[in-house]
């Protein structure tokens, strides 16, 4: 039983990690358009945070939309 709990916890941690990899990949492509130094400027930083939030909004909206179709 403890092992099952441990595996489930690891699984959900891993899903969060993989989502972060995917969001970073998508949002980096859209928000970081030039490489002119090692730091993010304020616009890029804001765009990255917005991008994650808008992506999650879209995901939630889609799930609700699909549920209401059933």
């Amino acid at each position, binding site marked *: 039983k403890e092992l099952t709990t441990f595996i489930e916890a690891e699984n959900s941690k891993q899903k969060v990690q993989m989502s972060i990899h995917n969001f970073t990949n998508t949002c980096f492509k859209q928000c970081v358009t030039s490489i002119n130094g090692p730091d993010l400027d304020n616009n890029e930083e804001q765009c990255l945070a917005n991008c994650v939030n*808008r992506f999650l*909004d*879209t*995901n939630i*909206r*889609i799930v609700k939309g699909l549920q209401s179709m059933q």
Partner: protein
Amino acid sequence: QISQELAIANATELVNKTTENCFEKCLTSPYNSGNENCVDQCLAKYMKSWNTVSKAYIARIQQASTSGEI
């Protein structure tokens, strides 16, 4: 139980692809504001596209199977 796992895999794939495509079509960098109206319409169009594609593909499989191609 196998059928159920496959149904979940299919639903997950549908949610992921719809989210990606509708995020791409409805939202743009720097992502200051959302666009729920567009997301709703995009989801409706995506589901209709899924049906059209599905019909065309299955017609093609049946045709190939009738003509002895496969």
